[in-house]
């Protein structure tokens, strides 16, 4: 039997071998930091610079220490609350804006759309100072609202939802209109369920983005009780020495919700990314 044939007799194309090789290398590159994170979280502080992937003397001591420290739980819940609230807000407001832009004809519609799109071109770093000044003037500094407000609606989300709502045939909405639904009920009961894959994708992007948000929460918060998980974890390095094993343990625990989210919604993530043509 030639090398190019599988046991079943099907031909394996060289292109396929190349693709698998590239995917394997890509996977390895992606997985290595993750594996090291878990590995380091099982090491003692003395073993951190021992680069072996499998720790010589694995221990769960770090996990016990992190979980016993009430602050970690607090940061974890802060992140959970903030990411969930911002995600829900995005799902509602982005889809309202997207739906309006996709399905209603009004004067200035194109202008509004361009204005929203153009905000995508402004980098976050440029927005942080205005956000900070605004928070300061409104008295939102060092508060949950202060952390959340810039992300409650996103131009990207509105754009994404607009694209998806455009694929919903008008007949569905008109049928509902004839059946006597109000415009709000049409959006909520007909249009929203029909773009469920897009909503899932938006929910995932939004949740992950906020779960891992670091820069703005770091700037706007001063009380340790209001830290989000990434800010809190980073504070392990701000003390006398950098405690890598603690940082890695915190990070490992922090990936759990995202892993669960991914496993639950894997199907939608793939579909969402394919449909939206985005990178995750």
């Amino acid at each position, binding site marked *: 039997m030639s090398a190019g044939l599988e046991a079943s007799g099907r031909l394996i194309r060289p292109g396929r071998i190349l693709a698998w090789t590239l995917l394997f290398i890509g996977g390895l590159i992606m997985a290595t930091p993750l594996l090291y994170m878990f590995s380091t979280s099982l090491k003692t502080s003395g073993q951190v610079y021992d680069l072996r992937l499998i720790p010589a003397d694995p221990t769960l001591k770090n996990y016990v220490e992190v979980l016993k420290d009430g602050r970690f739980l607090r940061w974890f819940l802060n992140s959970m609350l903030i990411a969930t609230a911002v995600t829900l807000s995005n799902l509602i407001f982005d889809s309202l804006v997207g739906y309006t832009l996709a399905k209603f004809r009004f004067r200035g519609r194109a202008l509004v759309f361009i204005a929203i799109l153009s905000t995508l071109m402004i980098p976050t770093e440029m927005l942080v100072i205005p956000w900070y000044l605004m928070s300061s003037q409104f008295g939102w500094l060092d508060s949950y609202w202060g952390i959340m407000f810039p992300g409650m609606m996103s131009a990207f989300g509105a754009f994404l939802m607009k694209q998806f709502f455009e694929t919903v045939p008008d*007949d569905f909405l008109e049928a509902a209109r004839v059946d006597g639904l109000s415009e709000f009920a049409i959006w909520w009961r007909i249009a929203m369920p*029909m773009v469920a894959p897009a909503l899932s994708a938006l929910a995932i992007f939004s949740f992950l983005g906020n779960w891992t948000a670091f820069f703005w929460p770091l700037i706007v918060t001063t009380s340790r009780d209001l830290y989000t998980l990434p800010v809190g974890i980073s504070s392990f390095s701000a003390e006398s020495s950098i405690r890598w094993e603690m940082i890695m343990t915190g990070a490992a625990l922090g990936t759990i919700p995202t892993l669960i989210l991914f496993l639950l919604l894997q199907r939608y993530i793939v579909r969402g990314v394919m449909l939206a043509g985005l990178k995750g």
Partner: protein
Amino acid sequence: MAKIELQGLGKRYGSAQVVHALDLTIEDGEFTVFVGPSGCGKSTTLRMIAGLEEISEGRLLIGGEMVNQREPKQRNIAMVFQNYAIYPHMTVGQNIGFGLYTAKLSKAEKQARILEAAKTLGLEPLLNRRPAALSGGQRQRVAIGRAMVRDPAAFLFDEPLSNLDAQLRAQMRMEIKSLHRRLGSTIVYVTHDQIEAMTMADQIVVMKEGRILQTGSPLELYENPADVFTARFIGSPSMALLKGEVSGGALRVAGAEISGRVPARASGPVLVGVRPHDLEVGAGEPGAGFRAMGLVEAVEPLGAETLTHIRIGEAQAVATAPGRVLPEVGSMVPVRAAPGTLHLFDAASEKALGRI
């Protein structure tokens, strides 16, 4: 049940007038079909009746009340769309029940209505299925069911059978027609398919370029088309037209011999129309109606008859031969049409002048 009246109904998009002052009465319980080519304004007219399109001018009356400014839901009409518009995230039962969204009925009453509609349409075993698991015909029935449960004043159908295959379309035509007989409701139906119009309508409205060309029963339109467009649009295959000339009360058509009384108002260049089913392959009696020799270009044996595509002089026509007769392509065959079957049109205005 309701009478629908269009009084000078028009639609403008900016400066473009797409529907011109339509006057039409659709009687209570009547099945009216708007037919015409794409872009003739038939769907726009239907959407104005539904309230999905604003009325630019004129008045629309449903059940004697002017409804120009009323929302679709206030007009008590139900509409069935071309792509069915049944919601993919709901079961068949929920979809049918959705028609009762705003109805002030108890849950049991709603359920009873859903079951009744499902029973009428043969959807009972499918009530818990999702639309994705249904065939095209079943989806269309669900859409009709959703319209039915509301017991509306009128049903509006917007090309509902366009997405179905030919066999299913024929079946659904008969189902909609028998449904109309049972419910006795007013139906306004839009299609570009003249067969649908002919087979289903009590009244056909032929539209072109935003205007009504002719209104009448299917046979009236078939027998007495008001102009060339209607004559060719109604009836399949289309009526053939031969150029002719009327002078001194006599009609001359190149390559054909015609006898009969020419209508007095006909003079000058005319078009002589003959329907395929009136034009038979075979030698006629001299002096009786229409006789000509035609060059056979193609034959379509349909079993019961053979459609024979022929050329008479410059004009193309379709003649019928009996089912087992297959004229040879390239041969010359005699064709005839009985007196009184020819339609005469003015060549310039294309208006009907009468029959010969």
